[in-house]
């Protein structure tokens, strides 16, 4: 039954991806600029323009370009059907290679940030709900409002100034490793994992150290809405009939709280899932402040340079990941909530 549900979701996801791919293909061509102009530069003669347009393949009819992109004309260039996302118009490198370099950085950053944010936010949210109206609850409310309403780049810059420049306990915001360190051989693309695979524990620690401030920054921002959501859902759960019954039955407070948390986590997981998908591309400001070179920065650069293959690929990859995350959430929902069955 579960296998059938997952298969169905993948099939629907595939149709969504195909639809999105075609929509994005046409939508980015409505952007108010011509990507060829970036290539011709000072040499903007008609001949040079035609040459550059030919190089990019934009001299061909739109449907022909789409056919090539989808992979129906492999003799011209490999396309999606051949597993190719195209070649960047800025760097000339296959987009698949570039995404394989940039995406792990962001996944590592966002995942660690979520783990930290959850580790902080869930107990705080619970605490606030279990002690409603108290000073601590008010404090939690102010914190969650404060953390959730400040832009991450501002916190990032502030943290750099404080923890690197003033206190000297954080490394310089120069990316994943110190400039004179050599990264481990790429196996998974995740610096921490690759360092462990290579047995380079010093590089592993250094990579974690360099992730410290960006993860703190993002976790600080993320914890705000998560605290609020957990607190509200927990408060609602604590007022539900089954909790009243549990209290009347004389169950220990900690046990009742665990039951309530389980009920509160189901809707909270939805928010967390949506936030995760959003942060994959929304972590760009944190990536920028800490020079991390993740997928968000890659996306911004692609958009600013009208690098169509890169834009298309980023949208496709982020969407695919989001679809998988949403599927995973549904499965977690089912595990948490016994009323849900597939």
């Amino acid at each position, binding site marked *: 039954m579960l296998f059938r549900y997952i298969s169905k979701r993948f099939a629907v996801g595939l149709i969504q991806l195909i639809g999105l791919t075609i929509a994005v293909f046409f939508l980015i061509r409505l*952007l108010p*600029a*011509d*990507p*060829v*102009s*970036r*290539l*011709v*530069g*000072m*040499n*903007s*003669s008609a001949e*040079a323009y*035609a*040459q*550059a347009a030919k*190089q990019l393949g934009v001299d061909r009819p739109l449907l022909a370009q789409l056919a090539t992109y989808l992979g129906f004309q492999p003799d011209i260039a490999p396309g999606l059907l051949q597993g190719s996302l195209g070649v960047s118009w*800025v*760097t*000339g*490198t296959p987009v698949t290679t*570039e995404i394989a*370099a*940039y995406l792990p950085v962001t996944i590592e950053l966002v995942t660690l940030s979520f783990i*930290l944010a959850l*580790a902080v936010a869930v*107990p705080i949210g619970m605490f606030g709900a279990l002690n409603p109206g108290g000073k601590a609850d008010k404090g939690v409310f102010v914190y969650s409002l404060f953390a959730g309403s400040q832009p991450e780049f501002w916190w990032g*810059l502030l943290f*750099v100034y404080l923890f*690197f*420049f003033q206190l000297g*306990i*954080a*490394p*310089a*915001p*120069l*990316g994943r490793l*110190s*400039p*004179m*360190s*050599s990264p481990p051989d790429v196996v998974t693309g995740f610096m921490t994992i690759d360092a462990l695979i290579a047995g380079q524990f*010093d590089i592993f*620690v*250094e990579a*974690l*150290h*360099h992730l*410290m401030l960006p993860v703190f920054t993002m976790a600080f921002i993320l914890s705000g809405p998560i605290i609020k959501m957990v607190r509200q859902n927990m408060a609602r759960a604590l007022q539900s009939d089954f909790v009243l019954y549990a209290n009347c039955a004389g169950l220990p407070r900690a046990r009742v709280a665990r039951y309530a948390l389980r009920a509160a986590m189901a809707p909270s997981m939805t928010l967390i899932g949506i936030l995760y998908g959003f942060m994959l591309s929304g972590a760009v400001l944190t990536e*920028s*402040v800490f*020079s991390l*070179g993740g997928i968000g*920065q*890659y996306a911004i650069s692609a958009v*600013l*340079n009208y690098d169509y293959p890169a834009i298309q690929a980023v949208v496709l990859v982020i969407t695919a990941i989001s679809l998988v995350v949403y599927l995973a959430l549904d499965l977690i929902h089912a595990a948490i909530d016994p009323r849900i069955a597939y």
Partner: protein
Amino acid sequence: MLKRNVLLSAVAAAGLAIAIAPASAAQQILVLAEDVPAGLDYDGPSAAIPASQQGMVSLLEPLVGYAAGPANESGVGMPDFSKIEGRLVERWDYDPATLTWTLHLRKGVKGCDGATFDAKDVAYTFARAKSVSGAAPIGWFLSNVASIDGFTPAVFGDDPKAKELGDEVKIIDDYTVQIRQSEPNALFLPVLSIFGLLVYDKETMEKHATEKDPWSHDYANSVNAPGFGAYCLDKWTKNQEITYKANPDYYRGKPAIDKVSVRRVPQSSNRVVVLRTGQAQLATGMTPKEFDSLRTAKGVAVGGVTGNENLFVHMNFKSKPFDDPKVRQAIAHAIPFEQIIKTGYFGQANQWNGSVPSSYPGYKAEAAFTYDPAKAKALLAEAGYPDGKGLEAFADAFQLSYVAEKESTLGPVVNIIQSSLRAVGVPATLNPIPQTQYGDRQLVKGDLPFAVNDQEKPIGVDAGYAIQLFFVSKDKGGLNNMVNYSSPVVDDLWAKARIEPDAAKRTDMLAQIQDQLTADVAWLPVVEYKTQWAYSDKLKGLRWYPDNAVRYFDLSVQ
């Protein structure tokens, strides 16, 4: 929870123990830049990006270059534009009868991959340029500008023969090459110093050629640019970092700095902070305000050069009301030049009184436009717009466009210009647009009516090159006439000056052209701002080059 936090703190503390030591102890430096090369092929898609050009000039060597001149007041070495000297070329002869340059090549020059430089490398470089096989054929463009025979627009046609190198570039022997021009053109030697004709190591390039890519564009674009430069590529991760190591066989001597690591740090404020801690030795691309703040920082020096960077107001002759000379003059007198210099550039700029960079040979200083709002109003009234009445009909034309990515630098300047124009009745509004869109409208469509531009630096060091690039009519050979300016006087004079072999006569004609450009307010020159770098006060030897890229070979750490 508590245990988890304690563990994280422990990890952070352990990481601190291995934090980077200042790089200046060894002869290696850390450079912080806005970006690292996106490609190393000057005929490739990223050639227009300054960070890519920085990579190319670090790895490849030109045939000729400008002699070193004295340092300026801030300690930055200046080139002597009156003297071109050999690099890979040792000396040259020119035969005016046959328009042929004979280049005598330097012997014993070795590249990073062990190849020895000879005439085949030069021929390969020109053959590759003429093949126009890259995305942006800059090598062809420069050869065309220098009137090298055969480098005509015919290369873009269907005839494959037109793309092949003929006897215009002839190998005489291993160390002698002859290059023939189609007409006398003083730009020949200046263009050979530009990044778009740096010499590739043929042997290594051909090793990486494929049937589909016979000129190794993919290799140069994504892997390495093999040449005979001062540095060799050590490590390169696009969008993150590039590291160069000194070429031990470099013909001008092994560079003093063994290793140069360039890191992309997108936030300029972070570049400032890291430089101030001493962990980096050189930082580029900050805002004028940040450079100003670093001027008093301990252990940091700021060097600046009034080189070839400037800011001007772009008014399109094809957009009403900018076709009216009085409106153009009125706008010129409404610009508060001193305020822009003080507020926008913190004093690190001068009013620009010309149409080409003042440091270039052939520049002529013109009478300065003065900030005179009363005169601006009077000129508007003469044009039929008293107090600006009637100009509201041109609201679209008065959208002052500028590159949105440069907001931190241009923001203060465009705001000053907008408020000053509004004060005299010009209904200017601000229109920040992305760089690519700006470039499209400026270079290809040519339909940008009104803009502030701070990114046009003619890379060929010659007033004539700048004039041909920006002011000559398109049908008379103009290359990038973004304001659709057309003057028979300018076109006729340029047609003569371009092929004038007598340097004095040519300079005189170029001066007449500049007089005309000023009279027509072809561009409204505003300021020449300093190209600046911030660096450790232990770093010595910084020199300025017209491409604004640092030559790491010049540097040493004391």
